[in-house]
């Protein structure tokens, strides 16, 4: 199994969720995060002093999928989250050794 860990723009969450539903993904976990990346340099002023807003609001979506689904999951996210503007985010794929559904003690792909 793989953990697909995507950092996206917050307002893309709804579209990503739907794109994942379309390919049959039924579970995911979402976290509010702040992202630091190339999309920086937007300088703001607070009470007269300039500062750079380095950390921008992002949303991290984590989905554990069967090995076979990792690529299409990644693709679906990339497609749904793309605006073409800097700061769109990344998708990382990380190996997962086991998964357990707490409710049923099922493990492995059935647990997803």
């Amino acid at each position, binding site marked *: 199994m793989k953990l697909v860990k995507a950092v996206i*723009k917050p*307002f893309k969450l*709804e579209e990503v969720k739907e794109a994942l539903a379309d390919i049959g993904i039924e579970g995911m976990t979402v976290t509010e995060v*702040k992202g630091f990346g190339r999309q920086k340099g937007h300088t703001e002023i607070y009470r007269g002093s300039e*500062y750079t*807003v*380095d*950390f921008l*609001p992002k949303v991290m979506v984590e989905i554990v999928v069967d090995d076979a689904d990792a690529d299409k999951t990644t693709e679906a996210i990339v497609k749904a989250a793309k605006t073409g*503007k800097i700061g769109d985010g990344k998708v990382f794929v990380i190996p997962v050794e086991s998964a357990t559904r707490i409710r049923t003690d099922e493990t492995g792909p059935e647990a997803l």
Partner: protein
Amino acid sequence: MKIKKYLLALLISGATLMGVGSLSAQEESAVDEAAVAAATELALAPAKAALAAGNDQAEAYLGLLEAQGDYAYAFDFFTVSMLWTVIAAALVFVMHLGFATLEAGLTQSKNTVNIMFKNVFIISIGIISYAVIGFNTHYPGDFNGWISFGSMIGDLNADGGNTFGYGGVGLAMTGYGDFIFQAMFAATAATIVSGAVAERVKLGSFMIFATLLVAIAYPVVGSWHWGGGWLGGLNGGNGFKDFAGSAVVHAFGGFAALACVIILGPRAGKYVDGKIRPILGHSMPLATIGVFLLFLGWFGFNGGSVLSADPSGVGLVFTTTALAASAGALASILISWVFLKKPDLSMALNGILAGLVGITANADIVSPMGSIIIGFIAGVIVVFSIIFFDKIKIDDPVGAISVHGVCGIWGILACAFFDVTDSGFTFIGQLIGVLAVGVAAFLFSIIVFGILKVTIGVRVSPEEEAEGLDIGEHGAEAYPDFANSSR
């Protein structure tokens, strides 16, 4: 010797009083100046005697009494009425904090700075523009009944701070009292619009629109009713009844909001594939604080509109206002529980406001039971109205059109049904009045906001809307903790 003068004055008083009697007897309307002076002397007697007796501090008080001129006999009543006026103004001011927190609570956190900013701007420009042009446009004195632009206010104490007389007991306040109370009202119209266009309106365009609305449209339309304009001749000369402004403030704001929302369109993501996707407000505590503060401020809005501290009027208005608000809440709770299956806090909050708007036109002419019914019906109306506007894709994040526009109409019409003073307000007369105000607000807004749309634009870019107006317009977040801080 002065003693003689004093005795002489007393004598003249006495003599003239008899003359006064005869004047009255002959029912002549001409004023006998000497008689007036004598009557005033009577009112001044205790203070004058005290001063004469060496009670030095009576001088200041006597000065106040004398500044009151011919109305010295009512100085104390005038003073308490004026005090009530300024306190009521402060209460109406509180409503602006209420609007700000309600609007912020019912919208997303990414637009909170923008909303707070708009509200700070609105109250500020509202007060300033009302001084510069609004007040004298709102109350133009003798005019054509439709429009007359006023100039900047001058020294409103020029008459010694004594304007008790100019509206009889019904306007027991100085010029400044009148100004500040009305100035606090003026910004309300723009605030109502602010809520409806929230989360997508371009800041600069909104600021221009709001300025024109409060500086020109509001006082012009207001002058039709409160400034002695043509609306006063309605209802067969009986006047059009709008006690504290269900029409000239709330419906006015509601219809302006409707026009702006039509031009602006709904927020991105609100109506997708023909389905409504609610965009949740980010803080129910803020929204609740807002509504409680509005409820509080309404005691000044309606109570101050008694225009004096007349005990029977103020007591009645406080009571009907509170009963209507409470009944509105209970109605919205009931309706949302029965029809929407859950007791919805945001609907209960809107129910309070609906009841308040509904009672605003008639708080001084209904019975307690009448006020409960008016509020209850408003609380029912507001729920269905909000659902209706959502169905027809009029996206109004805070429900301003329903609360202020629709319930404003209801309040005006209710004057014809629930009046216990037999003043003869008619359904038709009331309808004409509120429609005139609504249409005027709507047309003004369609034109002005429409021009802004085709020139500088009225809507932020989709990117900015998605990212939030706080970053886009202000470069700031409402809750920025953690980012870039040394926390």
